[in-house]
Protein backbone atom coordinates (compact mmCIF):
# COMPACT_ATOMS: atom_id res chain seq x y z
CA UNK A 1 0.00 0.00 0.00
CA UNK A 2 2.79 2.41 0.76
CA UNK A 3 5.28 1.60 -1.91
CA UNK A 4 5.52 4.53 -4.32
CA UNK A 5 6.71 2.30 -7.16
CA UNK A 6 3.79 -0.03 -6.68
CA UNK A 7 1.35 2.88 -6.92
CA UNK A 8 2.93 4.38 -10.04
CA UNK A 9 3.17 0.91 -11.56
CA UNK A 10 -0.52 0.38 -10.99
CA UNK A 11 -1.38 3.74 -12.61
CA UNK A 12 0.70 2.85 -15.69
CA UNK A 13 -0.95 -0.56 -15.84
CA UNK A 14 -4.40 1.08 -15.73
CA UNK A 15 -3.37 3.52 -18.45
CA UNK A 16 -2.27 0.64 -20.68
CA UNK A 17 -5.44 -1.33 -20.10
CA UNK A 18 -7.46 1.79 -20.95
CA UNK A 19 -5.69 2.03 -24.31
CA UNK A 20 -6.06 -1.69 -24.99
CA UNK A 21 -9.73 -1.65 -24.03
CA UNK A 22 -10.40 1.39 -26.22
CA UNK A 23 -8.78 -0.25 -29.24
CA UNK A 24 -10.73 -3.42 -28.60
CA UNK A 25 -13.96 -1.43 -28.32
CA UNK A 26 -13.34 0.40 -31.58
CA UNK A 27 -13.38 -2.89 -33.49
CA UNK A 28 -16.94 -3.64 -32.35
CA UNK A 29 -20.06 -2.40 -34.08
CA UNK A 30 -22.34 -3.01 -37.03
CA UNK A 31 -19.34 -2.55 -39.34
CA UNK A 32 -16.47 -4.67 -38.11
CA UNK A 33 -13.03 -3.10 -38.23
CA UNK A 34 -9.96 -5.16 -37.42
CA UNK A 35 -6.94 -3.86 -35.51
CA UNK A 36 -4.94 -4.29 -38.70
CA UNK A 37 -7.33 -2.04 -40.57
CA UNK A 38 -7.18 0.55 -37.80
CA UNK A 39 -3.40 0.80 -38.00
CA UNK A 40 -3.56 0.89 -41.82
CA UNK A 41 -6.16 3.67 -41.82
CA UNK A 42 -4.10 5.72 -39.37
CA UNK A 43 -0.87 5.15 -41.35
CA UNK A 44 -2.70 6.01 -44.59
CA UNK A 45 -4.04 9.25 -43.08
CA UNK A 46 -0.60 10.29 -41.84
CA UNK A 47 0.76 9.56 -45.32
CA UNK A 48 3.10 6.67 -44.57
CA UNK A 49 0.90 4.19 -46.40
CA UNK A 50 0.12 5.36 -49.93
CA UNK A 51 -2.55 2.85 -50.95
CA UNK A 52 -5.57 1.45 -49.17
CA UNK A 53 -5.51 -2.31 -49.79
CA UNK A 54 -7.03 -3.55 -46.57
CA UNK A 55 -9.93 -1.17 -46.02
CA UNK A 56 -12.69 0.62 -47.90
CA UNK A 57 -13.98 4.19 -47.70
CA UNK A 58 -16.74 2.95 -45.39
CA UNK A 59 -14.24 1.56 -42.93
CA UNK A 60 -12.36 4.81 -43.02
CA UNK A 61 -15.34 7.04 -42.35
CA UNK A 62 -16.84 4.73 -39.70
CA UNK A 63 -13.53 4.75 -37.82
CA UNK A 64 -12.71 8.43 -38.16
CA UNK A 65 -16.16 10.01 -37.96
CA UNK A 66 -18.02 7.67 -35.59
CA UNK A 67 -15.88 5.27 -33.58
CA UNK A 68 -12.91 7.50 -32.75
CA UNK A 69 -14.83 10.58 -31.58
CA UNK A 70 -17.15 8.30 -29.62
CA UNK A 71 -14.35 6.49 -27.82
CA UNK A 72 -12.50 9.75 -27.09
CA UNK A 73 -15.75 11.18 -25.75
CA UNK A 74 -16.16 8.15 -23.49
CA UNK A 75 -12.60 8.56 -22.22
CA UNK A 76 -13.01 12.30 -21.60
CA UNK A 77 -16.36 12.03 -19.85
CA UNK A 78 -15.21 9.07 -17.75
CA UNK A 79 -12.09 11.01 -16.82
CA UNK A 80 -14.16 14.04 -15.85
CA UNK A 81 -16.72 12.11 -13.81
CA UNK A 82 -14.00 10.15 -11.99
CA UNK A 83 -12.10 13.34 -11.15
CA UNK A 84 -15.23 15.18 -10.04
CA UNK A 85 -16.19 12.25 -7.83
CA UNK A 86 -12.77 12.17 -6.21
CA UNK A 87 -12.63 15.89 -5.41
CA UNK A 88 -16.27 16.10 -4.28
CA UNK A 89 -15.85 13.17 -1.90
CA UNK A 90 -12.85 15.10 -0.63
CA UNK A 91 -14.87 18.31 -0.29
CA UNK A 92 -17.56 16.56 1.74
CA UNK A 93 -14.96 14.37 3.49
CA UNK A 94 -17.34 11.53 2.81
CA UNK A 95 -16.75 8.50 0.58
CA UNK A 96 -20.46 8.13 -0.19
CA UNK A 97 -20.82 11.38 -2.15
CA UNK A 98 -21.81 11.42 -5.82
CA UNK A 99 -21.47 14.45 -8.16
CA UNK A 100 -25.29 14.48 -8.36
CA UNK A 101 -25.40 15.64 -4.72
CA UNK A 102 -24.61 19.27 -5.48
CA UNK A 103 -27.49 19.69 -7.91
CA UNK A 104 -25.48 19.61 -11.15
CA UNK A 105 -27.30 16.71 -12.77
CA UNK A 106 -30.83 17.77 -11.88
CA UNK A 107 -30.16 21.34 -13.03
CA UNK A 108 -28.83 19.92 -16.28
CA UNK A 109 -31.98 17.85 -16.64
CA UNK A 110 -34.20 20.96 -16.34
CA UNK A 111 -32.15 22.69 -19.01
CA UNK A 112 -32.40 19.64 -21.27
CA UNK A 113 -36.17 19.39 -20.76
CA UNK A 114 -36.59 23.08 -21.63
CA UNK A 115 -34.50 22.56 -24.75
CA UNK A 116 -36.50 19.49 -25.83
CA UNK A 117 -39.91 21.11 -25.24
CA UNK A 118 -39.29 24.59 -26.52
CA UNK A 119 -36.62 23.97 -29.16
CA UNK A 120 -38.92 24.81 -32.09
CA UNK A 121 -39.55 28.24 -30.51
CA UNK A 122 -35.89 28.79 -29.74
CA UNK A 123 -34.74 27.83 -33.25
CA UNK A 124 -36.64 30.80 -34.66
CA UNK A 125 -34.32 33.24 -32.93
CA UNK A 126 -31.00 31.48 -33.45
CA UNK A 127 -28.72 30.88 -36.41
CA UNK A 128 -29.12 27.35 -37.78
CA UNK A 129 -25.52 26.35 -37.06
CA UNK A 130 -26.17 26.68 -33.30
CA UNK A 131 -29.18 24.39 -33.28
CA UNK A 132 -27.39 21.13 -32.31
CA UNK A 133 -25.87 22.96 -29.36
CA UNK A 134 -29.11 24.27 -27.84
CA UNK A 135 -29.64 21.25 -25.61
CA UNK A 136 -26.07 21.16 -24.27
CA UNK A 137 -25.99 24.92 -23.71
CA UNK A 138 -29.29 24.97 -21.83
CA UNK A 139 -28.32 21.89 -19.86
CA UNK A 140 -25.03 23.49 -18.88
CA UNK A 141 -26.81 26.70 -17.86
CA UNK A 142 -29.24 24.69 -15.75
CA UNK A 143 -26.39 22.78 -14.13
CA UNK A 144 -24.54 25.99 -13.36
CA UNK A 145 -27.56 27.81 -11.92
CA UNK A 146 -28.53 24.98 -9.55
CA UNK A 147 -24.93 24.53 -8.40
CA UNK A 148 -24.65 28.25 -7.67
CA UNK A 149 -27.93 28.12 -5.73
CA UNK A 150 -26.69 25.19 -3.64
CA UNK A 151 -23.40 26.99 -3.07
CA UNK A 152 -25.06 30.26 -1.99
CA UNK A 153 -27.47 28.43 0.30
CA UNK A 154 -24.62 26.63 2.03
CA UNK A 155 -22.95 29.85 3.20
CA UNK A 156 -23.06 30.20 6.97
CA UNK A 157 -21.56 33.46 8.23
CA UNK A 158 -19.49 33.80 5.06
CA UNK A 159 -18.02 30.31 5.22
CA UNK A 160 -19.14 27.35 3.17
CA UNK A 161 -20.75 24.88 5.52
CA UNK A 162 -20.50 21.40 4.04
CA UNK A 163 -23.42 19.98 6.01
CA UNK A 164 -25.66 22.84 4.85
CA UNK A 165 -24.43 22.20 1.33
CA UNK A 166 -25.47 18.56 1.43
CA UNK A 167 -28.94 19.55 2.70
CA UNK A 168 -29.30 22.33 0.12
CA UNK A 169 -28.32 19.82 -2.55
CA UNK A 170 -31.11 17.50 -1.44
CA UNK A 171 -33.62 20.40 -1.39
CA UNK A 172 -32.59 21.67 -4.84
CA UNK A 173 -32.70 18.14 -6.26
CA UNK A 174 -36.24 17.73 -4.93
CA UNK A 175 -37.29 21.10 -6.38
CA UNK A 176 -35.75 20.22 -9.74
CA UNK A 177 -37.58 16.90 -9.62
CA UNK A 178 -40.91 18.65 -9.27
CA UNK A 179 -40.13 21.12 -12.07
CA UNK A 180 -39.16 18.24 -14.34
CA UNK A 181 -42.36 16.45 -13.32
CA UNK A 182 -44.35 19.52 -14.32
CA UNK A 183 -42.67 19.63 -17.74
CA UNK A 184 -43.15 15.88 -18.19
CA UNK A 185 -46.87 16.17 -17.48
CA UNK A 186 -47.19 18.88 -20.15
CA UNK A 187 -45.00 17.20 -22.76
CA UNK A 188 -46.05 15.24 -25.83
CA UNK A 189 -45.13 11.59 -26.32
CA UNK A 190 -42.17 12.29 -28.59
CA UNK A 191 -40.83 14.95 -26.25
CA UNK A 192 -41.15 12.60 -23.33
CA UNK A 193 -39.37 9.88 -25.25
CA UNK A 194 -36.39 12.06 -26.16
CA UNK A 195 -36.17 13.38 -22.60
CA UNK A 196 -36.24 9.86 -21.18
CA UNK A 197 -33.45 8.81 -23.51
CA UNK A 198 -31.45 11.87 -22.55
CA UNK A 199 -31.73 11.00 -18.86
CA UNK A 200 -30.50 7.48 -19.59
CA UNK A 201 -27.31 8.90 -21.04
CA UNK A 202 -25.57 8.24 -24.31
CA UNK A 203 -22.48 8.98 -26.34
CA UNK A 204 -24.29 9.22 -29.68
CA UNK A 205 -23.83 12.98 -30.03
CA UNK A 206 -20.07 12.63 -30.27
CA UNK A 207 -18.42 14.25 -33.28
CA UNK A 208 -15.11 16.05 -33.56
CA UNK A 209 -16.55 19.52 -32.75
CA UNK A 210 -18.14 18.27 -29.57
CA UNK A 211 -15.03 16.30 -28.64
CA UNK A 212 -13.07 19.55 -29.02
CA UNK A 213 -15.42 21.49 -26.74
CA UNK A 214 -15.61 18.72 -24.15
CA UNK A 215 -11.85 18.21 -24.03
CA UNK A 216 -11.38 21.91 -23.35
CA UNK A 217 -13.84 21.87 -20.45
CA UNK A 218 -12.50 18.64 -18.96
CA UNK A 219 -8.75 18.63 -19.54
CA UNK A 220 -8.08 22.17 -18.27
CA UNK A 221 -10.02 21.70 -15.00
CA UNK A 222 -8.26 18.34 -14.56
CA UNK A 223 -4.85 20.01 -14.79
CA UNK A 224 -5.91 22.65 -12.23
CA UNK A 225 -7.21 19.98 -9.88
CA UNK A 226 -4.00 18.00 -10.20
CA UNK A 227 -2.10 20.98 -8.79
CA UNK A 228 -4.32 21.06 -5.69
CA UNK A 229 -3.47 17.47 -4.73
CA UNK A 230 -1.48 18.10 -1.56
CA UNK A 231 -3.82 20.83 -0.30
CA UNK A 232 -6.66 18.34 -0.76
CA UNK A 233 -4.79 15.79 1.39
CA UNK A 234 -4.42 18.33 4.18
CA UNK A 235 -8.04 19.44 3.78
CA UNK A 236 -9.09 15.93 4.88
CA UNK A 237 -7.93 16.79 8.41
CA UNK A 238 -10.76 19.28 8.81
CA UNK A 239 -11.53 22.95 8.06
CA UNK A 240 -9.83 24.45 11.11
CA UNK A 241 -6.90 22.03 10.98
CA UNK A 242 -6.09 22.79 7.35
CA UNK A 243 -6.47 26.55 7.87
CA UNK A 244 -3.94 26.25 10.73
CA UNK A 245 -1.61 24.48 8.33
CA UNK A 246 -1.74 27.45 5.99
CA UNK A 247 -4.26 26.21 3.41
CA UNK A 248 -6.69 28.86 2.17
CA UNK A 249 -9.77 26.75 2.85
CA UNK A 250 -12.43 29.03 1.35
CA UNK A 251 -10.58 29.41 -1.91
CA UNK A 252 -9.95 25.65 -2.10
CA UNK A 253 -13.66 24.92 -1.56
CA UNK A 254 -14.65 27.43 -4.25
CA UNK A 255 -12.22 25.89 -6.72
CA UNK A 256 -13.52 22.37 -6.07
CA UNK A 257 -17.18 23.42 -6.45
CA UNK A 258 -16.53 25.45 -9.60
CA UNK A 259 -14.39 22.79 -11.26
CA UNK A 260 -16.67 19.88 -10.47
CA UNK A 261 -19.74 21.76 -11.65
CA UNK A 262 -18.02 22.63 -14.95
CA UNK A 263 -16.79 19.08 -15.50
CA UNK A 264 -20.04 17.35 -14.54
CA UNK A 265 -22.12 20.06 -16.23
CA UNK A 266 -20.36 19.60 -19.55
CA UNK A 267 -20.63 15.81 -19.47
CA UNK A 268 -24.29 15.89 -18.42
CA UNK A 269 -25.11 18.37 -21.14
CA UNK A 270 -23.58 16.37 -23.99
CA UNK A 271 -24.07 12.82 -22.73
CA UNK A 272 -27.03 13.01 -20.37
CA UNK A 273 -27.10 11.43 -16.97
CA UNK A 274 -24.36 8.87 -16.44
CA UNK A 275 -24.60 7.73 -12.85
CA UNK A 276 -22.32 5.96 -10.43
CA UNK A 277 -18.97 6.48 -12.20
CA UNK A 278 -18.12 9.41 -9.94
CA UNK A 279 -19.17 7.46 -6.87
CA UNK A 280 -17.51 4.15 -7.56
CA UNK A 281 -14.10 5.01 -9.00
CA UNK A 282 -12.58 7.05 -6.14
CA UNK A 283 -13.64 4.34 -3.76
CA UNK A 284 -11.93 1.57 -5.70
CA UNK A 285 -8.77 3.64 -6.04
CA UNK A 286 -8.72 4.35 -2.30
CA UNK A 287 -9.06 0.63 -1.69
CA UNK A 288 -6.15 -0.36 -3.94
CA UNK A 289 -3.84 2.67 -4.08
CA UNK A 290 -4.68 4.67 -0.96
CA UNK A 291 -6.28 8.03 -0.13
CA UNK A 292 -3.43 10.37 -1.17
CA UNK A 293 -4.81 12.71 -3.83
CA UNK A 294 -1.54 12.55 -5.75
CA UNK A 295 -2.65 9.07 -6.86
CA UNK A 296 -6.35 9.29 -6.11
CA UNK A 297 -7.07 12.04 -8.67
CA UNK A 298 -5.26 10.54 -11.70
CA UNK A 299 -6.30 7.05 -10.61
CA UNK A 300 -9.99 7.94 -10.40
CA UNK A 301 -9.73 9.75 -13.74
CA UNK A 302 -8.21 6.76 -15.54
CA UNK A 303 -10.50 4.23 -13.87
CA UNK A 304 -13.52 6.44 -14.68
CA UNK A 305 -12.46 6.36 -18.32
CA UNK A 306 -11.95 2.59 -18.23
CA UNK A 307 -15.39 2.02 -16.70
CA UNK A 308 -17.13 4.26 -19.21
CA UNK A 309 -15.35 2.69 -22.20
CA UNK A 310 -16.27 -0.72 -20.80
CA UNK A 311 -19.90 0.33 -20.26
CA UNK A 312 -20.01 1.69 -23.80
CA UNK A 313 -18.67 -1.61 -25.11
CA UNK A 314 -21.35 -3.51 -23.16
CA UNK A 315 -24.09 -1.09 -24.20
CA UNK A 316 -23.39 -1.58 -27.91
CA UNK A 317 -22.76 -5.35 -27.87
CA UNK A 318 -25.23 -6.80 -25.39
CA UNK A 319 -28.37 -6.36 -27.53
CA UNK A 320 -26.70 -5.60 -30.86
CA UNK A 321 -27.53 -4.41 -33.41
CA UNK A 322 -29.62 -2.23 -31.05
CA UNK A 323 -27.95 -0.20 -28.28
CA UNK A 324 -28.66 -0.02 -24.60
CA UNK A 325 -28.42 3.54 -23.16
CA UNK A 326 -25.06 3.80 -21.43
CA UNK A 327 -26.58 5.16 -18.20
CA UNK A 328 -28.47 1.90 -17.84
CA UNK A 329 -25.21 -0.04 -17.98
CA UNK A 330 -23.31 2.19 -15.52
CA UNK A 331 -26.21 2.02 -13.08
CA UNK A 332 -26.48 -1.73 -13.49
CA UNK A 333 -22.81 -2.06 -12.57
CA UNK A 334 -22.79 0.80 -10.06
CA UNK A 335 -25.88 0.10 -7.97
CA UNK A 336 -24.87 -3.37 -6.74
CA UNK A 337 -21.44 -1.95 -6.01
CA UNK A 338 -23.01 0.84 -3.96
CA UNK A 339 -24.98 -1.70 -1.96
CA UNK A 340 -21.80 -3.66 -1.32
CA UNK A 341 -20.10 -0.41 -0.29
CA UNK A 342 -22.74 0.39 2.30
CA UNK A 343 -22.75 -3.14 3.67
CA UNK A 344 -18.97 -3.38 3.93
CA UNK A 345 -18.70 0.04 5.55
CA UNK A 346 -21.42 -0.89 7.98
CA UNK A 347 -19.32 -3.83 9.07
CA UNK A 348 -16.13 -1.80 9.19
CA UNK A 349 -17.35 1.26 11.03
CA UNK A 350 -20.20 -0.29 12.95
CA UNK A 351 -22.90 2.34 12.28
CA UNK A 352 -24.24 2.02 15.84
CA UNK A 353 -21.11 3.84 17.03
Amino acid at each position, binding site marked *: *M*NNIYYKSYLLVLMMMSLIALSLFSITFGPVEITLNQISDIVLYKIGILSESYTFSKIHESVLLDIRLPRIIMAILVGLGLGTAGAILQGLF*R*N*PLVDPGFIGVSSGGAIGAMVAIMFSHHIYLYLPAMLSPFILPILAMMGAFVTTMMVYKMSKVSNKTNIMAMLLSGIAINALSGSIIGLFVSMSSDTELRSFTFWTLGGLDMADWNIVGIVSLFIVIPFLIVYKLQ*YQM*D*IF*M*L*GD*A*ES*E*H*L*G*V*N*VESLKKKIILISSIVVGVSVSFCGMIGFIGLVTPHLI*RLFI*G*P*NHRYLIPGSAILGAILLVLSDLISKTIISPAQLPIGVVTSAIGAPFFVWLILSQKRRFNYAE
Partner: protein
Amino acid sequence: MQNKTLIKLDSVNYSINNKLLIEDISFSVNNGDMVSIIGPNGSGKSTLIKLITGELSVTSGNVFFNNIKIDDWSSSELAYYRSVLPQSNYLAFPFSVLDIVKMGRYPIKDSTSSENELICKKILEVFDLSSHIDQNYMTLSGGEKQRVQLARVFSQIWSDNNYDNRVLIIDEPTSYLDINHQCCLFGFLKSMNKKGLTIVMVLHDLNQAIINSNKIIMLKQAKLVSYERTNKIIDTEKLEEVFDVKLKLIKNEESDRMFVTY
Protein backbone atom coordinates in the same frame (compact mmCIF):
# COMPACT_ATOMS: atom_id res chain seq x y z
CA MET B 1 13.51 38.69 24.46
CA GLN B 2 11.77 37.01 27.35
CA ASN B 3 9.30 39.82 27.89
CA LYS B 4 8.23 40.49 24.33
CA THR B 5 4.46 40.20 23.89
CA LEU B 6 3.51 37.48 21.43
CA ILE B 7 -0.25 37.15 21.81
CA LYS B 8 -2.38 40.03 23.01
CA LEU B 9 -6.14 40.26 23.59
CA ASP B 10 -7.64 43.69 24.05
CA SER B 11 -11.13 43.80 25.68
CA VAL B 12 -12.40 40.96 23.55
CA ASN B 13 -16.12 40.15 23.44
CA TYR B 14 -17.68 37.27 21.57
CA SER B 15 -21.38 36.53 21.38
CA ILE B 16 -23.74 34.27 19.47
CA ASN B 17 -27.46 35.16 19.37
CA ASN B 18 -26.93 37.88 21.99
CA LYS B 19 -25.44 35.35 24.41
CA LEU B 20 -21.98 36.41 25.55
CA LEU B 21 -19.56 33.50 25.36
CA ILE B 22 -16.51 35.65 26.07
CA GLU B 23 -16.94 38.86 28.03
CA ASP B 24 -14.40 41.66 28.03
CA ILE B 25 -11.23 39.59 28.24
CA SER B 26 -7.82 41.23 28.00
CA PHE B 27 -4.44 39.58 28.59
CA SER B 28 -1.15 39.00 26.90
CA VAL B 29 1.16 36.03 26.51
CA ASN B 30 4.88 36.70 26.35
CA ASN B 31 7.47 35.02 24.20
CA GLY B 32 8.63 31.89 26.07
CA ASP B 33 5.59 31.58 28.35
CA MET B 34 3.89 28.30 29.13
CA VAL B 35 0.28 29.21 29.85
CA SER B 36 -2.59 26.96 30.94
CA ILE B 37 -6.25 27.92 30.59
CA ILE B 38 -8.51 26.29 33.18
CA GLY B 39 -12.16 26.67 34.09
CA PRO B 40 -15.38 24.70 34.50
CA ASN B 41 -17.29 23.20 31.53
CA GLY B 42 -18.85 25.88 29.35
CA SER B 43 -16.73 28.67 30.81
CA GLY B 44 -15.42 29.56 27.35
CA LYS B 45 -11.99 27.88 27.24
CA SER B 46 -12.28 26.47 23.74
CA THR B 47 -14.01 29.62 22.48
CA LEU B 48 -11.14 31.66 23.85
CA ILE B 49 -8.64 29.38 22.06
CA LYS B 50 -10.58 29.79 18.81
CA LEU B 51 -10.53 33.57 19.19
CA ILE B 52 -6.79 33.55 19.85
CA THR B 53 -6.17 31.49 16.73
CA GLY B 54 -8.50 33.59 14.59
CA GLU B 55 -10.75 30.63 13.84
CA LEU B 56 -13.62 32.73 15.25
CA SER B 57 -13.84 36.48 14.71
CA VAL B 58 -14.34 38.71 17.74
CA THR B 59 -17.64 40.55 18.16
CA SER B 60 -15.72 43.51 19.54
CA GLY B 61 -12.16 44.13 20.71
CA ASN B 62 -8.88 43.07 19.13
CA VAL B 63 -6.61 40.04 18.98
CA PHE B 64 -2.96 40.53 18.08
CA PHE B 65 -0.26 38.05 17.17
CA ASN B 66 3.25 39.50 17.27
CA ASN B 67 1.76 43.06 17.34
CA ILE B 68 -0.19 42.57 14.13
CA LYS B 69 -3.97 42.03 14.12
CA ILE B 70 -4.79 38.36 13.70
CA ASP B 71 -7.04 39.05 10.67
CA ASP B 72 -4.19 40.80 8.84
CA TRP B 73 -2.06 37.66 8.87
CA SER B 74 -2.36 35.27 5.95
CA SER B 75 -2.97 31.69 7.03
CA SER B 76 0.23 30.48 5.36
CA GLU B 77 2.37 33.03 7.25
CA LEU B 78 0.66 32.20 10.53
CA ALA B 79 1.14 28.48 9.96
CA TYR B 80 4.89 29.06 9.91
CA TYR B 81 4.93 30.61 13.38
CA ARG B 82 2.07 28.88 15.03
CA SER B 83 0.65 25.39 15.24
CA VAL B 84 -2.74 24.59 16.67
CA LEU B 85 -4.31 21.34 17.85
CA PRO B 86 -8.12 21.51 17.98
CA GLN B 87 -10.15 19.05 20.03
CA SER B 88 -11.35 16.73 17.28
CA ASN B 89 -9.27 13.96 15.74
CA TYR B 90 -11.76 12.48 13.29
CA LEU B 91 -10.66 11.45 9.81
CA ALA B 92 -12.85 9.85 7.13
CA PHE B 93 -10.14 8.41 4.89
CA PRO B 94 -7.46 5.77 5.53
CA PHE B 95 -4.27 7.87 5.53
CA SER B 96 -1.18 6.35 7.11
CA VAL B 97 0.24 7.71 10.37
CA LEU B 98 3.36 9.03 8.62
CA ASP B 99 1.21 10.74 5.93
CA ILE B 100 -0.63 12.71 8.60
CA VAL B 101 2.45 13.71 10.58
CA LYS B 102 4.14 14.81 7.33
CA MET B 103 1.20 17.16 6.62
CA GLY B 104 2.48 19.17 9.58
CA ARG B 105 5.55 20.09 7.51
CA TYR B 106 3.45 21.60 4.68
CA PRO B 107 3.82 25.26 5.80
CA ILE B 108 7.59 24.97 6.21
CA LYS B 109 8.72 25.70 2.68
CA ASP B 110 12.48 25.86 3.33
CA SER B 111 12.78 22.24 4.42
CA THR B 112 13.54 19.37 2.03
CA SER B 113 11.39 16.26 1.96
CA SER B 114 14.14 14.01 3.36
CA GLU B 115 14.66 16.48 6.24
CA ASN B 116 10.91 16.43 6.83
CA GLU B 117 10.80 12.66 6.94
CA LEU B 118 13.64 12.61 9.48
CA ILE B 119 11.91 15.18 11.70
CA CYS B 120 8.59 13.34 11.53
CA LYS B 121 10.17 10.01 12.45
CA LYS B 122 12.01 11.61 15.36
CA ILE B 123 8.75 13.06 16.70
CA LEU B 124 6.86 9.81 16.14
CA GLU B 125 9.48 8.15 18.33
CA VAL B 126 8.89 10.72 21.09
CA PHE B 127 5.19 9.85 21.02
CA ASP B 128 5.86 6.11 21.07
CA LEU B 129 4.41 5.61 17.59
CA SER B 130 7.45 4.24 15.75
CA SER B 131 5.82 0.84 15.36
CA HIS B 132 2.68 2.41 13.84
CA ILE B 133 4.33 4.50 11.09
CA ASP B 134 2.61 2.77 8.17
CA GLN B 135 -0.61 1.91 9.97
CA ASN B 136 -3.99 3.18 8.76
CA TYR B 137 -5.02 6.08 11.01
CA MET B 138 -8.65 4.95 11.07
CA THR B 139 -7.71 1.70 12.78
CA LEU B 140 -5.91 3.39 15.69
CA SER B 141 -7.35 3.72 19.20
CA GLY B 142 -8.48 7.10 20.56
CA GLY B 143 -5.29 7.66 22.48
CA GLU B 144 -3.12 6.69 19.52
CA LYS B 145 -5.07 9.06 17.26
CA GLN B 146 -4.52 11.89 19.71
CA ARG B 147 -0.80 11.13 19.81
CA VAL B 148 -0.65 11.18 16.00
CA GLN B 149 -2.35 14.59 15.96
CA LEU B 150 0.05 15.83 18.64
CA ALA B 151 2.98 14.54 16.57
CA ARG B 152 1.54 16.46 13.61
CA VAL B 153 1.40 19.81 15.42
CA PHE B 154 4.88 19.25 16.86
CA SER B 155 6.29 18.48 13.41
CA GLN B 156 4.77 21.78 12.23
CA ILE B 157 6.46 23.83 14.93
CA TRP B 158 9.71 21.85 14.99
CA SER B 159 12.83 23.84 14.30
CA ASP B 160 16.52 23.09 14.66
CA ASN B 161 17.62 26.46 15.89
CA ASN B 162 15.04 29.05 16.71
CA TYR B 163 11.74 28.99 18.58
CA ASP B 164 11.55 32.77 18.90
CA ASN B 165 8.03 34.09 18.08
CA ARG B 166 6.76 30.55 17.67
CA VAL B 167 3.78 29.28 19.57
CA LEU B 168 2.01 25.98 20.07
CA ILE B 169 -1.68 26.10 21.00
CA ILE B 170 -3.28 22.86 22.17
CA ASP B 171 -6.83 22.23 23.34
CA GLU B 172 -7.11 19.42 25.92
CA PRO B 173 -4.11 17.41 24.73
CA THR B 174 -4.47 14.73 27.40
CA SER B 175 -8.17 13.83 27.08
CA TYR B 176 -7.47 10.34 25.64
CA LEU B 177 -3.94 9.73 26.95
CA ASP B 178 -2.96 7.18 29.58
CA ILE B 179 -0.78 8.34 32.47
CA ASN B 180 2.45 7.16 30.87
CA HIS B 181 1.85 9.13 27.68
CA GLN B 182 0.63 12.19 29.63
CA CYS B 183 3.90 12.19 31.52
CA CYS B 184 5.82 11.80 28.27
CA LEU B 185 3.85 14.64 26.61
CA PHE B 186 4.49 17.11 29.43
CA GLY B 187 8.18 16.17 29.54
CA PHE B 188 8.41 16.94 25.83
CA LEU B 189 6.39 20.18 26.16
CA LYS B 190 8.72 21.35 28.92
CA SER B 191 11.85 20.58 26.92
CA MET B 192 10.44 22.49 23.93
CA ASN B 193 9.51 25.37 26.22
CA LYS B 194 13.10 25.45 27.55
CA LYS B 195 14.31 25.89 23.97
CA GLY B 196 12.10 28.98 23.74
CA LEU B 197 8.79 27.72 22.34
CA THR B 198 5.73 29.54 23.68
CA ILE B 199 2.91 27.20 24.68
CA VAL B 200 -0.78 27.89 25.37
CA MET B 201 -2.93 24.95 26.43
CA VAL B 202 -6.39 24.17 27.76
CA LEU B 203 -6.18 21.65 30.60
CA HIS B 204 -8.75 19.91 32.76
CA ASP B 205 -6.47 18.52 35.42
CA LEU B 206 -5.68 21.29 37.92
CA ASN B 207 -2.52 19.58 39.17
CA GLN B 208 -1.18 19.23 35.64
CA ALA B 209 -1.81 22.93 35.07
CA ILE B 210 -0.09 23.88 38.31
CA ILE B 211 2.95 21.68 37.75
CA ASN B 212 3.43 22.26 34.05
CA SER B 213 2.82 25.92 33.38
CA ASN B 214 4.33 29.19 34.54
CA LYS B 215 1.07 31.13 34.21
CA ILE B 216 -2.56 30.12 34.64
CA ILE B 217 -5.64 31.77 33.15
CA MET B 218 -8.84 31.01 35.06
CA LEU B 219 -12.20 31.46 33.34
CA LYS B 220 -15.67 31.38 34.78
CA GLN B 221 -18.92 32.15 32.98
CA ALA B 222 -17.25 33.83 30.01
CA LYS B 223 -15.13 36.10 32.21
CA LEU B 224 -11.49 36.06 33.13
CA VAL B 225 -11.25 35.47 36.88
CA SER B 226 -7.50 35.58 37.25
CA TYR B 227 -4.29 35.48 35.28
CA GLU B 228 -1.32 34.82 37.52
CA ARG B 229 2.05 33.19 37.75
CA THR B 230 1.85 29.72 39.24
CA ASN B 231 2.95 29.79 42.88
CA LYS B 232 4.14 27.24 45.32
CA ILE B 233 1.21 28.37 47.45
CA ILE B 234 -2.07 27.24 45.89
CA ASP B 235 -5.03 29.55 46.35
CA THR B 236 -7.65 26.90 47.10
CA GLU B 237 -10.28 29.48 47.98
CA LYS B 238 -10.25 30.91 44.49
CA LEU B 239 -10.27 27.44 42.92
CA GLU B 240 -13.22 26.45 45.10
CA GLU B 241 -15.07 29.56 44.02
CA VAL B 242 -14.39 29.02 40.32
CA PHE B 243 -15.17 25.30 40.23
CA ASP B 244 -17.83 25.36 42.94
CA VAL B 245 -16.47 22.33 44.78
CA LYS B 246 -14.77 21.68 48.17
CA LEU B 247 -11.05 21.12 47.73
CA LYS B 248 -8.28 19.71 49.93
CA LEU B 249 -4.52 20.13 49.71
CA ILE B 250 -2.29 17.10 50.08
CA LYS B 251 1.47 17.28 50.42
CA ASN B 252 3.68 14.93 48.47
CA GLU B 253 6.46 14.22 50.98
CA GLU B 254 9.00 13.25 48.34
CA SER B 255 8.78 16.22 46.02
CA ASP B 256 7.60 18.69 48.64
CA ARG B 257 4.78 19.75 46.32
CA MET B 258 1.16 20.41 47.18
CA PHE B 259 -1.62 18.66 45.29
CA VAL B 260 -5.24 19.63 44.96
CA THR B 261 -7.91 17.02 45.39
CA TYR B 262 -11.57 16.81 46.30
